[in-house]
C-alpha cells in the first residue's frame, strides 16, 4: 500500500485548517475543558498521520476525524482521566459570547456522553440520522433512540408534532 505522503505533516496541516475548529468544538462539548479539547484535537491529527488512512472524498475524511475524536474523548473519560473536568463548576471558564450561550452549552455538556454526541452531530453539524449511524458505527435505531432521549433531557418540543 502506498503511504499517503513523503513529508509527514503537510496534508495534515491542510486538513487542520479545514477541520480543527469542528473537532475542537466536538471535544470541548465532550470534555468540558479548553485545554483538554485542544490536546484531544491535536492527538486526532497525530492519529491522522500515524494511521495515514486514504479517503474517498472530503466527507469521508470528515467522518473519520469525527469518529476518531469521539472515541478518543470516550477513552479519556473512561479512564477516569481528568475526572475533575466532568464537574462543570470546577472546569475553567469557556469563552463564549453571552451568559445565555454558556448556559445552553453547559446544559448539553452535562448530558451523558452517548446523548450529547448525537445531539451535537444532529443539531450543530446537521447530520441526518443515517449519517450519524455511519460515523459512529452504531445502528440507526440506536441513533434515533439517543436523539429522542437527548431531546427529553433537554426538554425540547418538536414543532407541531407529538413528542413521545
Amino acid at each position, binding site marked *: 500500500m502506498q503511504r499517503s505522503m513523503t513529508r509527514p505533516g503537510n496534508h495534515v496541516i491542510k486538513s487542520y485548517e479545514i477541520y480543527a475548529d469542528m473537532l475542537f468544538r466536538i471535544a470541548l462539548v465532550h470534555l468540558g475543558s479548553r485545554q483538554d479539547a485542544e490536546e484531544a484535537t*491535536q492527538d486526532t491529527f497525530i492519529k491522522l498521520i500515524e494511521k495515514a*488512512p486514504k*479517503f474517498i472524498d472530503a466527507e469521508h475524511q470528515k467522518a473519520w476525524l469525527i469518529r476518531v475524536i469521539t472515541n478518543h474523548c470516550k477513552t479519556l473519560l473512561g479512564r477516569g482521566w481528568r475526572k475533575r473536568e466532568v464537574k462543570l463548576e470546577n472546569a475553567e471558564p469557556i469563552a463564549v459570547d453571552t451568559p445565555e450561550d454558556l448556559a445552553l452549552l453547559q446544559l448539553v455538556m452535562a448530558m451523558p456522553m*452517548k446523548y450529547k454526541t448525537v445531539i451535537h452531530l444532529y443539531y450543530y453539524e446537521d447530520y441526518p*440520522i443515517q449519517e450519524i449511524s455511519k460515523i459512529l*458505527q452504531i445502528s440507526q435505531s440506536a441513533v434515533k433512540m439517543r436523539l429522542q432521549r437527548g431531546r427529553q433531557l433537554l426538554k425540547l418540543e418538536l414543532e407541531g408534532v407529538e413528542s413521545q
Partner: protein
Amino acid sequence: MKEDQFRTLYKKAVDSMKPGEEMKKELIDKLEQQQERKRPRKTVYIAASIVLAAGIGLAAPNIWQQLNGQSTQGQIAQVTPGPSQPDNSGTNASGSIVIPKLELPDTKSGVMADMIALVVYKDNIYTQSATRINAADAAALRGDKLGRTTGGIDEWSGKDKYIELASNIGETDIYSIKGYDSNFLIMSYSEINGEVFAELYEHTNGITVNSGDDLFGKLNLEGRITSAQWESFDSWNNGQQQYTPLADDEALNGFVKALQTAKPLAAESLTAQGIYDSEDRKVLYLQLEDNARVELTLFGEGLVHYGQAPVFFEVESGAFQQLWDSMKP
C-alpha cells in the same frame, strides 16, 4: 424550548467556542517531536522545516502547490473503520435465527459496550423498546412492581456490573405491563414533581426466532390495531416526524397476518450487503388499543425490521407489496 429555536441558539453558542492560536503551534511541535523519534536526524531538519513553514504560512506558493498536490494524491481509498458492531446471530439448519444472549463485555478484553438504554432483569438484558407509550397512558398500563433499578452501568462496565436490576437509566421503578409477558416487555416508571417518566424495555436476545410470530406474537398485534401511520425515509432520517395516516385496512390486516409467518433472516449478512445504505425504506407506526405504539421499518426489498433485534423478516411478497403500494403521500 422549540426544536428549531434550540438548533439556532446551540449553533450560535457552539460557534463562539474557538481554539487558541497556540493549538496549531503545539501540534506542529508535536509533529516535529514525532518525526525526530522516527527519522534520521538529517531528514528531520528538512521535514520539520517544511512542516513548520507550511504551518505558519511562510512557505512560498510553489511549495504550497507541491504539498497540496501530494496531499490530494494521498486522499484516496483505504479507510480504517472501527470494529463492526457485535452481531453473532446465525441461521441454523432449520432456517431459524438464533439471537445470542446479550452480555456486558469482559472489560479485560478492552472492549467497551456500545450503550443503549438497558435494564438487567431476571438475568437478562432488556433494551429500550421500539414499542412506545405516552406518559399519560403509562399509569393505566402499569402492572406489578418488579423492583427498582440501581443504575451503575456505563460504557465501561464489565461483567461484574451485570447484577439484577442494574441499569444505565438511573434509579427508577420497574413494572410489568398489563397484557404483556414480563419475560418480553417491562416498563420503567417514575413521577417527578407530578410529571410522569415512563419507557418500555424489551428482551429480544437469547432467543431463537423461527418465524415472525416469535417476535411480533409477543406484541399481540392481530386484532388490536386501532390506527396506523407511516413516515417516509426522508422524514424519518431528518427527524421531521411527518406522519401520514394509513387508510387501507385490508392491506394492513393482510400485512400483519403475513408478518406472523414471515421468514427470519440474520441481520449480519444483510447489513454487510449494505441494506442500510439504501434509502428505499418506510417506517410504519401501529397504534394499539392500549395506546402503545409499535414501530416497524419496512425495506423495499420486502423485509421488515423491529427494534434492536438483529433479525429481519421476509414477509410474503403479495401482502408486503400491497401495503407498500398503499403508503403514498
